[in-house]
């Protein structure tokens, strides 16, 4: 409990001084919320016989991970699909959202402030309503079970939200920045690219982290629109529910790949993903 001493020395308000019950409670909360993450990581490395045991002490093995890469689970191919779909989505979504956010932030449109809000409000619609017609379209175009279809669908929830998030950052920048650059003879587009975008980069980074997390985790659209070729990692989880029962060790191995990037970039996720969500939705 060496962390306990850190608080009073800073001279915090008495309201936050931490008695022992509070320390215990915080630990309990941390355990409840982190248990599934620990379970996934532990189970992925457990020998098959220990998967159902409660023990945390075991000889780690790569057996489950190797089995997950073999047919019929093919985690390698699923992982590759997830990477390509997420990358493709971001490459299209971020530039489109950035310029749209700039336009919303700097120009007046008929209807005023309503349009960015309409964009945001579309995100409150249930995904099932969007996916039915898109399923029909992709079926008619013979695009079902393709990564391209998934990228297109992912744009539907990433572009509106990313635009909203980046707009918030542009709103905070003084408009005379690019005006000054224009007086120096630069065209408006040049001025945006050279002056505004670099300053707004933290906002764009926040939107990028948000888009990455949401797109990487996306499950429902991929469940409906893929069958085999374009299956992403979250949907692959369902394939481990076989006739002979649930292959938990395989699921855990897949889960490991799904959360690994979140754990790697957890600092940024903490700073940008949640802050972006919080500021976008509530402020």
């Amino acid at each position, binding site marked *: 409990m060496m962390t306990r001493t850190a608080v009073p020395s800073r001279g915090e308000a008495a309201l936050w001084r931490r008695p022992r019950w509070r320390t215990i409670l915080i630990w309990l909360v941390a355990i409840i919320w982190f248990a599934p993450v620990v379970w996934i990581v532990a*189970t992925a490395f457990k020998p098959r016989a220990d998967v159902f045991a409660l023990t945390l002490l075991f000889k780690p093995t790569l057996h489950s991970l190797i089995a997950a890469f073999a047919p019929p689970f093919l985690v390698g191919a699923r992982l590759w699909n997830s990477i390509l779909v997420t990358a493709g989505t971001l490459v299209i979504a971020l530039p489109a959202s950035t310029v749209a956010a700039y336009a919303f932030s700097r120009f007046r449109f008929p209807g005023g402030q309503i349009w960015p809000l309409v964009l945001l409000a579309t995100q409150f619609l*249930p995904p099932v309503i969007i996916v039915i017609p898109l399923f029909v379209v992709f079926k008619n175009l013979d695009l079902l079970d393709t990564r391209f279809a998934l990228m297109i669908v992912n744009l539907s929830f990433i572009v509106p939200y990313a635009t909203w998030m980046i707009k918030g950052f542009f709103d905070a920048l003084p408009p005379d920045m690019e005006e000054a650059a224009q007086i120096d003879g630069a065209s408006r587009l040049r001025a945006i690219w050279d002056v505004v975008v670099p300053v707004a980069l933290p906002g764009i980074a926040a939107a990028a982290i948000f888009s990455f997390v949401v797109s990487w985790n996306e499950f429902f659209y991929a469940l409906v629109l893929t069958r085999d070729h374009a299956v992403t990692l979250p949907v692959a989880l369902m394939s481990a529910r076989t006739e002979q029962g649930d292959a938990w060790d395989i699921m855990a191995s897949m889960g490991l790949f799904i959360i690994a990037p979140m754990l790697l970039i957890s600092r940024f996720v903490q700073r940008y993903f949640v802050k972006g969500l919080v500021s976008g939705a509530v402020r």
Partner: protein
Amino acid sequence: MKERYLKYGLLAPALAICAVTLFYPLMQSLIYSVHDWRMSRSPVVGAFVGLSNYADLLLHDPDFLNSAWVTLVFTVPSVALTIAVALALAVLLAGSGRLEVNARMLLVIPFAMSPALIGISWRFMLSPEFGVVDTMLKHIVPGLGKAPILSDPTLAMVALILVDVWHWTPYFMLTFIGALASLPQETLDAAQVDGAGSMRIFFEIVLPQLRPVLAIAVLLKTIFSLKMLDQVVTMTAGGPGAATETVPYLVYTTAFRYYDIGYASAMAWLLAVVMMVLALVYSRFLLGRKT
């Protein structure tokens, strides 16, 4: 004049994306909803049936009425509990001590986890053959037999609600911590000087000032709860029976298991209307706070 080209030009890519992926599907599903279209029988839209899909849903379909009830039974406690637990955790973890900061950071990870993965991992932890939750419950309530939680209608719903609360609490907790930090420190200090206990300070000074934030949080969580779907698919698959068959899940099975596209679209639109009303209230809130 040049500026006009520029402003609409900048907007064009995003607008095109939204037109293709949002506005077109919305309108199209509205059209499907007034047609009879069983895709398993015909590859093209069938006869125009007016509002009869809607009438059937509201008047003659016990499955839909059940799913509406299930959605309500899920939504009300999940909203109330999420907000309450998040508020409690916000007060618990708002400090700037190292333990608090680390705990906050830890809690973000499960929130950033794929909802599908959350559903799967809780399904495992709740499963009778593994039963970590089972075993722990037996220690707390002795004499409790092996409880196959997800095969009991009531317990499955309770589990679904608690997992949802577990999922969303970190997000709303961080929202509330932000709001707590922006409260004026003077009134808190004054109350403390006056000798008010921390319970009284919380309920009489802090809570009233958080009201606008709480209102928005309740609204947002209601929307999120109404459209929650991934965990139903991965944890309970609507079961046992139809005990956790929410409206979004029923739309999903109607459209993609039975391929009754017209009927499913009508169902989706009924849900969407409710959400649109909530979204409108939410937009008013945001616009109202800006001015």
